[in-house]
């Protein structure tokens, strides 16, 4: 199972180099035969499970060929921009913040219940901006902790602020998507505001988060590094810890675990959409429909350590039925993020 995410490290590295990305955009697509070929753009880290689980099942059912181009969200966006009017990719799997950019540029074909019937079976909050895209899987965010240095698992997000953890807590940078919920949860802890309200008004959250500074070991941009410190026991907790990474490390034998605190966990975005003007449009919608179906999702949820978005698929082990799963308002994030990062730099980074 641990081989499934081997690509992830390289994806993170790629994220940092950026330069390599340009070369990838310029690369011409693979020469394709005349019919029944579907090109799906996605993240390099997804390649193992897409090619081992999704592609064989889909190809068999629809008698076609699926080519998965694994890069990263922003590269996929650039590919779609460059090929506007003559798209060669049909489906795109990207993070939600990038989906918003694609919607703004008119690159996506909205999903409809007629073309993708499984839309009707999704949990609420799994489709966005009038079903321009849907979430097929949602890694969840909780608190990752080191089991050998913390004998009792944290049960509340408030424990991060406990003075006894001075210099032992790691949080993600706000530039990392998994870093955003810290503001919202801090806002909730500060004045009891509902998470939805705390997403809109982040002032209390920022003020509360500033009191975490004494406890911070570092603010990471490189996820593997943070987990390295956690596994060595230099850090006790990472908040937010992402299920697709933390549980993968746990499965590989690292002395860590991911807990769902009582205030709830956050769902991370893994969006899927059909590209406007896509070749093989019918097949593209079929692919999206399958990815939203219970059959595919039940096969994918476990190896990706993620929540399924189809109602028929049960929650994964480790996530009790009464734990609230908070959805993030990505349109709001897109509008506010730059301002948040500015404030974060001035208040957290000094």
């Amino acid at each position: 199972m641990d081989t499934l995410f081997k690509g992830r490290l390289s994806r993170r590295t790629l994220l940092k180099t950026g330069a390599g990305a340009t070369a990838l955009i310029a690369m011409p697509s693979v020469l394709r035969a005349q019919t029944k070929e579907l090109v799906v753009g996605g993240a390099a880290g997804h390649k193992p499970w897409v090619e081992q689980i999704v592609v064989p099942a889909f190809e068999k059912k629809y008698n076609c060929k699926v080519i998965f181009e694994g890069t990263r969200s922003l590269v996929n966006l650039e590919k779609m921009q460059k090929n506007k009017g003559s798209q060669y990719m049909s489906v795109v799997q990207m993070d939600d913040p990038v989906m918003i950019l694609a919607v703004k540029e008119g690159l996506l074909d909205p999903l409809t219940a007629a073309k993708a019937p499984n839309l009707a079976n999704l949990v609420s909050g799994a489709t966005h901006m009038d079903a321009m895209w849907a979430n097929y899987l949602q890694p969840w965010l909780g608190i990752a902790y080191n089991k050998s240095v913390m004998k009792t698992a944290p049960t509340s997000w408030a424990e991060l602020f406990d003075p006894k953890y001075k210099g032992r807590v790691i949080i993600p940078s706000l530039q990392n998507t998994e870093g955003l919920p810290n503001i919202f949860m801090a806002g909730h802890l500060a004045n009891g505001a509902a998470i939805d309200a705390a997403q809109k008004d982040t002032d209390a959250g920022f003020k509360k988060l500033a009191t975490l500074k004494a406890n911070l070991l570092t603010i990471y941009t490189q996820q593997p590094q943070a987990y390295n410190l956690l596994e060595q026991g230099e850090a006790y907790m990472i908040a937010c810890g992402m299920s697709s990474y933390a549980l993968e490390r746990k499965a590989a034998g690292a002395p860590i675990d991911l807990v769902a605190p009582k205030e709830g966990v956050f769902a991370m975005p893994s969006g899927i959409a059909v590209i406007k003007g896509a070749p093989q449009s019918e097949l593209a919608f079929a692919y999206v429909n399958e990815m939203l179906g219970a059959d595919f999702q039940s096969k994918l949820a476990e190896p990706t350590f993620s929540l399924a978005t189809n109602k028929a698929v049960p929650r994964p082990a480790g996530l009790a039925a009464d734990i609230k799963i908070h959805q993030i308002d990505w349109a709001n994030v897109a509008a506010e993020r730059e301002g948040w990062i500015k404030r974060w730099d001035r208040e957290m980074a000094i």
Partner: protein
Amino acid sequence: MSAARRLDPVLLLALPAVLYIAVIYGVPLLVLLGRSLLVGGVPSLAPFISFFSDGFSWIVIGNTVRISVLVTLLCLVIGYPTALALARTRGAMQALILVAIILPLSVGVVVKAFAWQIVLRRDGIVSQFMTGIGLWDEPQRLLFTEAGLVIGAANVFVPFMILPIYSVLKLIDPRLGEAAATLGASPFYRFFKVALPLSLPGIVTGIAFVFSMAASMYVIPSLLIGDRFQTLATLTGRSFLFMRNEQLGSTTAVVLLVLTVAVVVASASLSKRLGGAS
């Protein structure tokens, strides 16, 4: 005669390098500069005005300059004696020192930064040593501190200080020192009045190398100190890669460029004035 020098065909040998730099470096640089001065297609200094009128920008510039100066100093203090040793030794010993300096360059920066993480953490080697000899009362963490960043960055850049100094030192006629000695100069006097002035061009070149690399390092601070310490380079990287704010990114990039070019040009002219061709 000057006409003959202008037409010297040997100069054409530099053509491939010049073309390469022009295409790979010059053109993007002009684009970058253009972008930083254009707001919505109209030439404007507004990005720079808003950048410089923001107190946070000055903190970032201060961080960049302070770290670069400290890294450069540490490299000089460690590098000069090493270069001296390298220039004095011969044969197998010299080869050994050279390999020891150059081989670590083949290890990627990321690997080194991860190694430093092991060395600098609370129960790391440095902390154990310092508490062991009684200098520190209790284990301390250097990781994610400025001191840790300086130590780690100097480790990566020190070869770029050693090699230019070494290349100048080995050209110095050893008889100069001997001549000074026969005239009664003490070793101390010989070093400060003979060896050091003669090696200044190498020092200046080394400083230019290390300073500009330290000012523009991106991966090392992101691994050794994290997001709580912003430099011009990390701010630039983030503006382009994450915030997709090309305006801010090109502005910070130009500020960084001006800063490092100023240091490089100043050291080049200093080197010329000190009479050496480095």
